[in-house]
C-alpha cells in the first residue's frame, strides 16, 4: 500500500514535470540563478579566507636581542614562546645569519659594507620572528615578552627592541579590516541567499498557481492532502535537481575562464582547481540546497491552495 502510493506519487511528479515543460523550464532557470548565488558565496568565502590568510601571514613581530644575549637563552625563549597557544610559529635567526642577511641586502652598498668591516665584532643581535594565529594576539605576545624574567641578565634587559610597538597602529588597523571584511561578507552572503530563496519560492508558487484549479478538482475527487501534495513536492525536487546539475555544469567553464585572472589578482587561489578539488562539497551544497529549496517551496505553496 505504502509502496504503491509512493510509486504513484513519484510517477505523477515526473509527469507534472515534463508535461508542463515550459513552466518547469522557467522554474529551473530561476532556481539555477539561486543556486548560482549560493555557489558563488562558497567561492567568495574561499577567496576571502585565502586572501585574509595570505595577508595575515605577512604580519609578524620581530624581537631583536642585544649582542650579548647567548644563543641558548634565545632558543629557550623561543621554546617558551612556542608553548603559547596564540603562537603559530617562531623563526630563529642567529647573529651570524643576521649578518649574512644584512650583507646580502646591502651587497651593492660599498659604503655600508666598508663601515661594517671597520667594526671589531658582529654588531647584530639574534632575531626571533614570531607569527601569531590571529593578528589581535600580537599585543598579548608582546606583553609576554616584556614581562618575562629570562630576558634579563645582571638587571639589564637582553631584548634590544620589539618592533610590535612600531607596527602597532598598522596591525590594529589590519585586525580591524579583517574583522569588518568578515562581518560584511557574512552579512552580504546571508542577504543574497535570502533574496534568491524568496525569488525561487515565488516562482514555484506561481508554477503551482497555474495548478490551483487542478488541486480543487483533486480535492473534489476525494484525494487526501498528502496525495495532492506529494506529486508537487516530487516536481519541486526535480526542479531543484535539474537546476543543481545545470549550475554544477556551468561552474566548470566559468571557473576555468576566471582561474588565471583570479590567481594573479588574489593571493594565488586558483578557482578552477579549488572547484575541482572541492567538487564533493559543491555537489552536496548545491544539489542539497536545490532539493531542499524545491521540496519546501512546493510543500508550502500547495499548502496555500489546500485551504480553499
Amino acid at each position: 500500500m505504502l509502496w504503491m502510493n509512493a510509486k504513484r506519487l513519484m510517477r505523477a511528479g515526473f509527469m507534472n514535470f515534463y508535461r508542463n515543460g515550459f513552466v518547469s523550464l522557467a522554474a529551473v532557470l530561476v532556481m539555477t540563478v539561486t543556486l548560482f548565488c549560493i555557489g558563488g558565496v562558497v567561492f567568495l568565502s574561499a577567496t576571502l579566507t585565502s586572501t585574509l590568510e595570505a595577508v595575515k601571514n605577512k604580519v609578524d613581530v620581530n624581537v631583536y636581542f642585544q649582542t650579548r644575549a647567548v644563543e641558548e637563552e634565545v632558543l629557550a625563549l623561543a621554546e617558551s614562546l612556542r608553548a603559547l597557544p596564540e603562537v603559530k610559529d617562531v623563526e630563529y635567526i642567529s647573529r651570524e645569519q643576521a649578518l649574512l642577511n644584512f650583507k646580502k641586502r646591502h651587497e651593492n652598498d660599498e659604503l655600508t659594507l666598508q663601515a661594517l668591516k671597520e667594526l671589531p665584532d658582529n654588531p647584530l643581535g639574534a632575531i626571533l620572528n614570531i607569527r601569531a594565529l590571529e593578528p589581535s594576539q600580537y599585543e598579548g605576545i608582546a606583553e609576554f615578552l616584556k614581562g618575562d624574567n629570562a630576558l634579563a641578565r645582571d638587571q639589564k634587559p637582553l631584548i634590544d627592541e620589539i618592533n610590535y610597538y612600531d607596527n602597532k597602529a598598522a596591525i590594529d588597523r589590519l585586525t580591524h579590516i579583517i574583522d569588518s571584511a568578515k562581518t560584511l561578507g557574512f552579512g552580504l552572503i546571508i542577504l543574497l541567499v535570502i533574496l534568491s530563496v524568496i525569488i525561487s519560492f515565488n516562482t514555484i508558487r506561481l508554477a503551482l498557481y497555474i495548478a490551483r484549479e487542478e488541486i480543487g478538482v483533486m480535492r473534489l475527487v476525494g484525494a487526501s492532502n498528502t496525495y495532492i501534495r506529494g506529486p508537487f513536492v516530487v516536481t519541486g525536487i526535480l526542479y531543484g535537481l535539474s537546476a543543481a546539475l545545470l549550475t554544477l555544469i556551468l561552474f566548470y567553464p566559468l571557473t576555468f575562464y576566471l582561474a588565471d585572472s583570479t590567481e594573479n589578482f588574489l593571493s594565488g587561489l586558483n578557482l578552477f582547481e579549488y572547484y575541482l578539488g572541492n567538487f564533493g562539497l559543491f555537489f552536496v551544497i548545491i544539489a542539497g540546497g536545490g532539493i531542499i529549496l524545491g521540496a519546501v517551496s512546493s510543500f508550502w505553496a500547495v499548502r496555500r491552495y489546500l485551504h480553499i
Partner: protein
Amino acid sequence: MIHFDKVSKIYSDNSTALDDVSFSISPKEFVSVVGHSGAGKTTLLRMILAEEWPTSGTVFFQERDVHALKRHRLHEYRRKIGTIFQDVRLLPNKTAYENIAFAMEVAGRTDDEIASDVPYALELVNLADKMLNFPRELSGGEKQRVAIARAIVNQPDIIIADEPTANLDPINTQEIVKILKKINDLGTTVMLTTHNKGVIDSLGRRVITLDRGRIIRDDPKGKYSL
C-alpha cells in the same frame, strides 16, 4: 440517505442563497432540482459536498452531520459522492484514462482494479476508443462523459450532477441523460440540477423546484414548470 433539516445560507443581508430548506432523498432515487439562476441550486449541492457551511440548520448524509466531519476526514467522505460539473473539471494534463484512474488511485485502489475498472467505466459512457486522448482533444460532450465515468468508477453512493448538460447540444444532452438514467437503474442515487425543460419532462422522475432559496414545489413525478 440525504436529509436537509431547516438549512439556511445567508451570504449577506440582501443575499440569501437558501432559506429554511428541508427535504429528504431516499436511496436509489433520481431527483432533479430545478430553478432560475441564483435560486440556490448550486449552493444546495455544495452543501452536500461540505464545500459550503450552512448559516443555520443541518445536512445529514446517511444519518451523519456532514458539517461536523473533521477537515482531514473530508476527503474520505467525498469519495462516497461522485460529482459532475457544468464545466467538467477534468485534469488537463492527464488523458481520459488517467483522469479516471486518478479518482481510483486516490481512493487507494490497486493497479489491477484500476486496469480492469477504468475501461469498463469508459465503455459505459461509450468512450472506449478515446481513452488515450487528453481533454483538449475531446468534444464538450465527450469531456462530460469522461467526467461521468470518473464520477461512477468508485461506485459512489450518490451521483451529484450540477447542470451537466448546460453547455451541450440536444443530442449530447440526451446522451448524457440516458447515461445518468442507466447509472440510476444500476442502483446509484442520482441528484441532478438543470434548467433544461426537455430533460426534466423526458425523465418523469421526482422534481424539486427552488425559487429564491425556498422549495416551492416537490413533485414525485414532476414536470418542468416555473
